[in-house]
C-alpha cells in the first residue's frame, strides 16, 4: 500500500517535471473521462476531440502547479469543464438550464431489469435520457452518479455553490424518472 502510494508520488513528480512518457500514461488514463465531459456538454465528436486536446494541453502547462489539494481526476474535470464551456460560449452556444425541446420518454420494454443486469440497449436509453437534460443538469448527474464525486467536488468543478448542485440533481432526477419510466418499469413512482 505504502509502496503504491510512493509510486504514485513518483509518477506525479514525473508528471510535474514535464516527462512525456508519464504524461502519455496520464492521457491514456483520463482521456475517456475528458471525452465524456465534452460529450455531456453536448459537443459533437470532432468538437469533443478539439476540446479534449486543449484540455490536455492546458493540463500539461498547469501540472507543475498542481499540489494535490483535489484528486487528479477532479482537477482534470475542472479544466475540461472550463474548456468545454468556453468553447460553447465562443461558438455562441450557452450551457442551458432549460430544455431546448420538450423531452420525450425513451424506450419501452416488457420486463423490469435488475440493477445488475442492464443490457447495452438499456444503457443507451439511459444515456439518451441524460442527453435530453439541460447541459448543467446532465453534467451534475454524470459527476454524481457515474464519477461518484461529492457535492463539494461537483461544486468545485462547475464553479458553483453546493446548494445549486443539489437543485440541479433534484430537478434532473425528477425529469429522468419521467423520461425513464418505461426503462425502469412502472414500479418507479413518478411524481
Amino acid at each position, binding site marked *: 500500500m505504502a509502496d503504491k502510494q510512493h509510486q504514485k508520488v513518483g509518477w506525479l513528480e514525473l508528471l510535474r517535471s514535464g516527462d512525456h512518457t508519464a504524461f502519455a500514461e496520464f492521457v*491514456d488514463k483520463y482521456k475517456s473521462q475528458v471525452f465524456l465531459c465534452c460529450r455531456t456538454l453536448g459537443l459533437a465528436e470532432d468538437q*469533443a476531440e478539439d476540446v479534449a486536446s486543449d484540455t490536455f494541453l492546458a493540463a500539461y502547462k498547469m501540472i507543475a502547479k498542481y499540489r494535490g489539494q483535489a484528486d487528479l481526476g477532479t482537477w482534470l474535470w475542472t479544466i475540461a469543464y472550463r474548456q468545454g464551456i468556453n468553447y460553447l460560449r465562443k461558438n455562441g452556444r450557452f450551457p442551458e438550464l432549460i430544455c431546448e425541446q420538450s423531452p420525450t420518454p425513451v424506450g419501452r420494454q416488457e420486463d423490469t431489469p435488475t440493477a445488475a443486469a442492464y443490457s447495452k440497449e438499456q444503457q443507451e436509453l439511459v444515456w439518451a435520457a441524460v442527453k435530453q437534460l439541460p447541459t448543467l443538469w446532465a453534467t451534475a448527474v454524470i459527476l454524481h452518479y457515474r464519477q461518484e464525486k461529492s457535492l463539494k467536488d461537483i461544486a468545485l468543478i462547475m464553479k458553483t455553490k453546493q446548494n445549486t448542485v443539489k437543485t440541479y440533481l433534484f430537478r434532473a432526477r425528477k425529469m429522468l424518472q419521467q423520461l425513464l419510466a418505461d426503462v425502469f418499469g412502472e*414500479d418507479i*413512482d413518478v411524481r
Partner: protein
Amino acid sequence: MSADKQNANCFDAGLKCALKSHSEPAPLDFTEKVLRQIRQSQEQKILARVVVQERLALTGCIILAIVFIVLTVALPGVAAGLTLQAETLSYKIDHALQTVGSRWQLCITFMAAFVFAVYYLVDSLVADTR
C-alpha cells in the same frame, strides 16, 4: 423503509449502474496527437524566445548606432576624444602584436589561450541552446 424511499434507491442504483457502463470512446491515436501538439507548442515557445532575443540584439545595435551619431553631432568634442582613444588603442594593439610576434614562445602561449577561450565560448553557447 417506505415504498417511496425504496423506489428512489432502486432508481438511483439503476441510474448509477447504467451510467457507469457507458463510456465515450476516444480516437485510437489521441495520445500521440496530444503529445505531438505538446512538442510543437514547446518548439514554438523556444522559437519565440530566440526571435525575441534576436530582436533585442538588433534593437540594441540600432540604439547604439543612433546614440553614437547623436553623440557625434551634439558633443563633437567627446566624439573626437573617443576617436583619438580608438586610434591610440589600435596603435597599442599593433605595437603589442609586433612585440609578441618577435617572441615565438609568448606568441604560442597567447595563441593557446586564445584557442581555449574560443573553444570555451562555443561550448557554452552550444550547451545553452541544447
